[in-house]
Each structure stands twice: as structure tokens, then as C-alpha cells.
């Protein structure tokens, strides 16, 4: 059985009000199929819930899908909370409809990667695989 002794753990969910979870479910499945342990938290999460869950689950990365247009506020809030909790080692990445301009400022603020609607699943999986598992 192909179990890595230190599988990457990734929290995947949606923050904010939009209810479109098809993409995020596909990503959760693709990451699982790549051998990762994916904690799927579902819809309508607040940044506070996401960060609290990420710490309890000791994940290596958080992947958030935001299609509501509130990406600037929400991603920044998650980064802020991670910093407050001394948990900046957890990599934050995301997906959604995010204008290039916003993507640039968000990555400058600390979001590790952002993937648009047309991004190949392979790229997302490769990005997460490039992160190092803890302990």
C-alpha cells in the first residue's frame, strides 16, 4: 500500500458566502488521489473557523476557494490570524476569480499561490506537493 509515512495534510474549504463548491471538491479529490490527507471543511467558513481548524488538524497548507469577490478581505484576514497564532508556517493558497492586480498584492502579502478558473489540476497538485510535510 502506497502510504507515505509523512503524508501532507491539507485543509480545503470555502470561505464567505458563495455556495459553489464543485471546484473545491474536485481539488480535494485530486489532492487525495495524489496521496495527501485532505481535511474538507465545506461551505461558508469564516477565516476564524479555518485557522482554528488548521491548527487543530496541524495541516501543512490551507487551500481556499473564494468566488464571491471578497478575496482581498478574506485571504488577508486568514493571513492575519495565522500570524496571530504564530502559525505562519502553514502555507495559504487559493482559487477563484481573482483579477491579476489583486493576485499580485495578495501574493505579496503572503498568499503562496492563486489559481484561476482555468488552472490545470496538475499545477495545483504539483504546487502542494512542493510543500514540505511537518515532523
Amino acid at each position, binding site marked *: *500500500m*502506497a*502510504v*507515505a*509515512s*509523512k*503524508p501532507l*495534510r491539507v485543509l480545503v474549504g470555502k470561505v464567505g458566502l458563495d455556495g459553489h463548491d464543485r471546484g473545491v471538491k474536485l481539488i*480535494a*479529490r485530486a*489532492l*487525495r*488521489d*495524489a*496521496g*495527501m*490527507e*485532505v*481535511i*474538507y*471543511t*465545506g461551505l461558508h*467558513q469564516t477565516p*476564524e*473557523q479555518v485557522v*482554528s*481548524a488548521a*491548527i*487543530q*488538524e*496541524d495541516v501543512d497548507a490551507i487551500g481556499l476557494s473564494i468566488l464571491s469577490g471578497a478575496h482581498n478581505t478574506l485571504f488577508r484576514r486568514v493571513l492575519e490570524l495565522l500570524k496571530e*497564532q*504564530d*502559525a505562519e*508556517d502553514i502555507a495559504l493558497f487559493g482559487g477563484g476569480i481573482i483579477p491579476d492586480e489583486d493576485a499580485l498584492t495578495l501574493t505579496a502579502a503572503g498568499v503562496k499561490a492563486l489559481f484561476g478558473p482555468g488552472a490545470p489540476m496538475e499545477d495545483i497538485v504539483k504546487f502542494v506537493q512542493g510543500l514540505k*510535510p*511537518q*515532523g
Partner: protein
Amino acid sequence: MSASSLGLSMRDTHGVAILAEQVRAGNVRAASRLITLLENHPKDRAVVGLLDDTSREATVIGVTGYPGAGKSTVVDRLVGFYRRNGLKVGVLAVDISSPVSGGALLGDRIRMQEHALDREVYIRSMATRGHHGGLAQATGDAALVLKAAGYEAILIETIGVGQNEIDIVNLAHTVVAVVAPGLGDEVQAMKAGLLEVAHIVVVNKGDLPGTDHTLRDLREWCPKVLRTVATTGEGIPELAEAIAGHQRSRGVRHVENARDR
């Protein structure tokens, strides 16, 4: 917590001892990190000895049963019940790892959102990583970490797919099996497996047709059968009382003793 525990290795005995001390002080991040270390190094368990604290007691409750019977919702409701009684509550939710990729999709938290921001509730998803018996290899150690961190009620949700889920019997003081009405064949199968080891059987979704039949059927086999509707909370206080009654009848037991028995 300090970033010094990042990338901490089990071989760093000093670092691990500091981490154990932080766990005992109730530091959530330290508890999370230590559970990860124990998951990743299941044979390297010396740290468990540092967690032992006989002044702390925890009740360990196992919740098992087939997928779709409502285990996570029952667990969610029990968390709410114990929180209202002022207990710190830990949840270990175990799901199966894919035998193909080794990955896992862990979704039990979805049904436990109500407690997401409660600082006195800790929820951890664990994947089996190829371990058989219904739990992950490190689930018992994770329960010890939570006990050391001061969690007083520890709920363990098993993967719930088969008859071979016997690990939970050795770990939990009380085992609750959750079934849904109308699962005729599955209940038949459970009679030969889980139901033999469950101390309490819950017929959840007890507002569905067929509930009375299932209750009658199971009462011929099991000493304690209760009806719940976990989505509304109906029957949960009775379940908590049955769990307490079972534990009274057996005397209070420490987690590590339960492991060894």
C-alpha cells in the same frame, strides 16, 4: 507556541520533552504537533511516558457504526451535551486512507461546525494509513495527548465500515454503535460483529419509518438500545445518561488502563 517545534524530530528528546510540557499546559498547537509526530513515528512512543498524569481523568467514548448512520452528527450532539456540562471535549474522527493513493478525504468536521470556535473543543481528523481495526495506529496515543492537555471527555469516531472494528473496544470505556432504521442486511451483519462489542446501541434517524421494527429487532440482541434523532438532538440526553450509567457500572478507568486491558 514557539516556532522551534517546527520540523521537530522524535530523536530530539529535549525538544519533544518541551513539547510534552506545553501539551500539559493545555497548548493546542503543541497538542496538534505532538499528535502529528506520533502519527508519523508510531514506533517511537517514548514521549507518551512524559504525558502520564494520574491527576487528570478523561472519559473515552467510542462511536462506531456504518457510514450514513449519523455517527458524526451523534458525536456533534454529544460534544454539545458535554460542553453544557462544562467539560473540555476532544474528538478524534477516523476515516479510511485510500489503499490506492494512500491519501484520504477527511470530512467529519463538516458536521461539527457548531464547535469550530469553541476553545474548549478540539477536533482532529485521522486517516487509518493502512492500519486495520477501525482506527489509526496512533489514535490511542492521540487520546493520551488530549487527556494530558486537559480534555475530559474524549469522543472517538471509528471509520465504520466493517465487522473488524475491535480496536475501539480496547481504547474506549464505552462503545456506542450507531445504526439507522431500515438497514436490514447491515444490521444482520452487525449482529455478528460490532453489536457484540457495543455497550450501547443507538437507532439514529429515529423519526424514519421502520424505527420501531429496528428497535424491537435489536433489543433481542443488545442490552441497551436507544432511539435518537441526532439532527434535532432528540434522545441525546438519554444517550449521555446511558453512557454515564455504563461507566458507573464499571468504575472510572484511566485511558491508559483501558488501553492495556
